[in-house]
């Protein structure tokens, strides 16, 4: 079964970091440029994220995660560059269209914000195992029932995708058309989705019984088999992120930035 999580363990230093250190970095990297309000601050955090990804050999995997946003960023540049409400000074003219400086500045702010968020988030996603993150959160008091919900999604989805392939093969072999006109494709949706949904709901009943038998609903404190070491690098990541975030807030309040 193919996993839907993007996490891969390549043994690099970021993979070995504690999940919380990466969370601290994520929060700091997203908030710092927004609080500072300067365009160049986005460049700083974007470059920091890229260098982290490069040092852990993850940059190539991060590219497809970010590439999808390029088309929408491009349309933002076109639409805002031409139609932004405060447009006054023309920057360049392409045939009948003229792009304005204000609109382009506004859209580069949006574009950089999106890029920064995606990059810093991809560090967390590519290098952290979801079940490990959930377990660490549970140790800090996160509800184990919600922890179960998150973990089991990662098991259920590959299983349902298997069912989905079986059912679409079965329906096709019975002569159902899945290609052609829009109406034909719309009609094909119901016979495809309803067996998957029905089987998922029925098997959830069995899963509930199996969990109950194993004491899922028991109200006792859980114990953990594995504990993640908290290293010097974790300390550096955590306090580096927190102090730079605090510094930006202080500088902003004192009107230095």
């Amino acid at each position, binding site marked *: 079964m193919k996993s839907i999580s993007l996490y891969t363990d390549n043994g690099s230093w970021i993979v070995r970091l504690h999940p919380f250190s990466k969370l601290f970095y994520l929060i700091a990297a997203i908030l710092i440029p927004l609080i500072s309000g300067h365009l160049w601050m986005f460049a700083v955090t974007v470059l920091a994220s890229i260098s982290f990804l490069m040092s852990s050999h993850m940059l190539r995997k991060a590219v497809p995660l970010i590439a999808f946003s390029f088309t929408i960023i491009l349309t933002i540049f076109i639409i805002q560059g031409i139609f932004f409400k405060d447009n006054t000074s023309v920057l360049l003219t392409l045939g009948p269209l003229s792009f304005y400086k204000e609109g382009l500045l506004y859209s580069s702010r949006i574009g950089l914000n999106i890029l920064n968020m995606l990059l810093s988030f991809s560090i967390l*996603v590519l290098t952290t195992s979801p079940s490990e993150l959930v377990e660490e959160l549970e140790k800090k008091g996160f509800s184990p029932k919600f922890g179960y919900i998150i973990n089991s999604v990662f098991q259920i989805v590959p299983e349902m995708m298997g069912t989905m392939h079986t059912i679409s093969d079965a329906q096709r072999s019975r002569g159902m058309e899945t290609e052609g006109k829009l109406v034909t494709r719309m009609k094909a949706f119901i016979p495809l989705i309803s067996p998957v949904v029905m089987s998922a709901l029925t098997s959830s009943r069995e899963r509930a019984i199996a969990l109950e038998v194993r004491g899922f609903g028991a109200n006792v404190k859980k114990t953990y088999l594995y504990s993640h070491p908290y290293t010097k690098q974790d300390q550096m990541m955590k306090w580096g992120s927190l102090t730079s975030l605090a510094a930006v807030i202080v500088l902003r309040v004192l009107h230095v930035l």
Partner: protein
Amino acid sequence: MGKLFKTNFSTAVIVLIPACIGINYIGKLFAQLLKLPLWLDCIGTCIGAILGGPIIGGICGAANNLIYGFTTGDNITLVYALTSLFIGISVGIMARLGFMESFPKAMLTACVGGLAAVVVSTPLNIMYWGGQTGNVWGDAVFAATQAAGLPVWIGSLLDELVVDVPDKLITGIIVYLIVSKLPQKLTTLYDANAVIESLD
């Protein structure tokens, strides 16, 4: 009908949530497979909301976006957790009020869900994308309104309206067809207002 927000947190309901999240994912996959111009990515949220009530619907919606944000790595999906949360809550409330009993009523529920999505998404679209949605038809509408000099929020609202309401109507039809065929053996498991009768 019973109480509107009463929620049953039994194991059966907890297990229903990941199943619903899986259904959302499969719906989206099938829509892509059949090249439909719709998202159809909240079928599970609606089913969860109808079976478990507004709270479970809200949890399904929010958890759905949080988890997929994590698997696809785009935290833009995370922001729209708020939209899914409100779709789940509004559909759940409508279902508890009895608006899932007949086909026309189910359509009304779908409209309410769609409008909830529009109202919550529009400010998010303005904050993150300058008002666009990324859907070709919706963005064409947005460009037209901006060219006509209308305020950004009206353009963004129309942009979202054109995309979301038809999507939720189709979702509503599918959900109605599925939920009305579910065996009672299953639906009673999730009923928060059920009463156990004893024979003695």
